[in-house]
């Protein structure tokens, strides 16, 4: 099979044998995943497949990789994608400065010029970028490789990732093929600013992270901002829920909910009122137009009710 995944991989955290236990484990590390997401993560670990996470900005995609590295007690290697990223920034580059020095030194010492080329293109002069680091990682557990915002890269890079993610190996012409002994646990994220190629997605397990429901969001706030009182947490979650119905440029994500709650707590808030919303609106709505829209809809309506549905 093309997957290269033979049998079980068992990269599960200690004491975890199924998706429900994994969900609990994630929770212990302050990440509240619903059953779908924890099943997706569980399968990622079991099947050794990359996990492709999509969703609005701020729903906690990157956080998944971070919490995985924490519960598995393994390093997180992060590759931030951007337009124009290429192999030399993602996999490896030669250390030219050192190569030049080496040439000079060889000359000065009247050294072996015959074998100069072989020396220059040896491991010693190779700089590993994130993907190579992830493939070469040695340790108890494979590292977590986060390929963040893959939608920002371009087609060529996607095609290249395809290759790496199917074989977990990379060929460096001067050195040969480097294969991961233990493939990294891979999490790809996309904000969906453009459509990522199907072929790449097909290599991965796919999960679309939605905004959380009311109760879950309250829980998330409680876990992430323990100083916030229950009542405040519920009011904030309800208000954010209403904002998401408002047709904004950027509806608030969980990240904004947490930011907002922190801001409110910092102001000593115990419950939400119109004045507090006004004072802290900038920590939840990041566009001036969105703030105006919320204001004209009436900030009081964001506070109304509060205990949620």
């Amino acid at each position, binding site marked *: *099979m093309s997957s290269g995944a033979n049998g079980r991989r068992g990269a599960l955290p200690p004491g975890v044998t199924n*998706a429900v236990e994994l969900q609990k484990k994630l929770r212990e590390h302050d990440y509240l995943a619903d*059953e779908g997401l924890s099943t997706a993560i569980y399968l990622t670990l079991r099947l050794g497949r990359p996990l492709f996470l999509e969703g609005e900005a701020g729903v906690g995609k990157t956080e998944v990789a971070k919490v995985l590295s924490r519960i598995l007690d393994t390093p997180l290697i992060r590759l931030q994608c951007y337009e*124009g990223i290429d192999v030399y920034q993602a996999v490896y580059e030669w250390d030219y400065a050192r190569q030049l020095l080496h040439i000079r030194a060889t000359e000065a010492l009247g050294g072996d*010029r015959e074998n*100069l080329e072989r020396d220059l293109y040896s491991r010693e002069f190779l700089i590993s970028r994130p993907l190579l680091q992830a493939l070469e990682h040695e340790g108890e557990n494979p590292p977590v490789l986060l390929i963040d915002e893959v939608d920002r890269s371009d087609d*060529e890079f996607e095609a290249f990732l395809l290759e790496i993610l199917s074989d977990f190996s990379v060929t460096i012409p001067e050195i040969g093929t480097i294969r991961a002994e233990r493939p990294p646990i891979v999490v790809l994220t996309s904000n969906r600013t453009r459509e990522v190629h199907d072929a790449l997605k097909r290599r991965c*397990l796919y999960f*679309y992270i939605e905004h959380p429901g009311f109760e879950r969001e309250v829980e998330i706030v409680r876990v992430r901002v323990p100083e916030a009182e229950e009542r405040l947490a519920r009011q904030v979650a309800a208000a954010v829920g209403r904002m998401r119905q408002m047709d904004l440029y950027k509806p608030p994500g969980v990240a904004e909910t947490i930011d907002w709650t922190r801001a409110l707590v910092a102001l000593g808030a115990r419950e939400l009122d119109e004045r507090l919303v006004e004072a802290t609106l900038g920590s939840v709505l990041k566009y001036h137009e969105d703030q105006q829209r919320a204001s004209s809809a009436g900030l009081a309506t964001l506070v109304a009710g509060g205990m949620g549905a």
Partner: protein
Amino acid sequence: MLDAAVAFGRVLRGAGLSVGPDRVMEFARALEELDAGRREDVYWAGKVTLTSRPEDGETYDRAFEIFWERGGEYRQRPVPKMRFRIPSPKDSVLPAKKTVRPDREGDQEAVTLRYSPIEVLRRKDFSEYTPEEFEELDGLLSELRVGGALRRTRRLEPARRGLYDARRTMRGAMRTGGEAVRHRFRRARSEPRRVVVLCDVSGSMSPYSRALLRFLHAGVISGLPFEAFSLGTRLTRLTRELATRDPDVALRRAADAMEDFSGGTRLGDAMKEFVDRWGQRGMARGAIVVILSDGWDRGEVDVLAEQMSRIHRLAYHVIWVNPLKARPGYRPLAAGMAAALPYVDTFLSGNNFDSLHRLARAIAEAAGHHR
């Protein structure tokens, strides 16, 4: 279990999801890892292995219910009911035989449509469209790739001067025993230029506005640096409104944002606002500026001429698209048009689908000029 997975895969394929055998195998393996007797486990195993877009979710859910909970009558009627939904409400007119042929360079995407009623629509003037035809046009326009042609990578390529290319210099040095006799350079391959489109939405343009706004939408979601504005009695930036993939939502948002839709024109003033607020600060610098307008200006013509000259100085290339240009015997007699023409590099018609295709090509070609 494998049989069931295969059968379920077939149902999903029938429903329009792209589910290959590899995915079905993956689904079967996922089931082995989970409790295949538990509904939730089967549901999520399928969801993460057999879908790949949020839009797939609804189709999947319905197929799942029918297949797993009503006893797998997958050969029965349910399948056609789950036709894959295309945002345009009139998906039935989408040409069945559409071939998308990507050019070798990967930057020319030609869309060939073979379907006779569509052929007619392509050349028909937008102003003669019936409401039904407009709905069909939506389907056609969704195939239009604005400057898919434009897309250039930012990769570095060898060049006579530019950034020092240590890699190739070093390579060359090997041939001369470690002496870097020839220094090599590289530079970024041409980047896509920003495209700024100013679309006249005054009353006289209204037969064309709908189609042209769709063109703007295609541009905004093309992934290029693309900015869209409407020009009427005032200027409205539409880029963010149009940035939603769903064309219906995008157009509704754009319409909400424009207070002056189908009103009068004060082209010069609106353009002045563009140059003052956006163009001068950088948006028009080195950009390809496209103006979609019939050139009827009820304001001062001098203002328009002055603003056009400013734009011309800032921009890399100025394209004016006038739907009236296609009319037999058209001459740019509208005062505004006449005043603007000296500052226009490319003058096109924009009255039908084919001409929008030409516009997309003109944008692509303008972007490539400097190479």
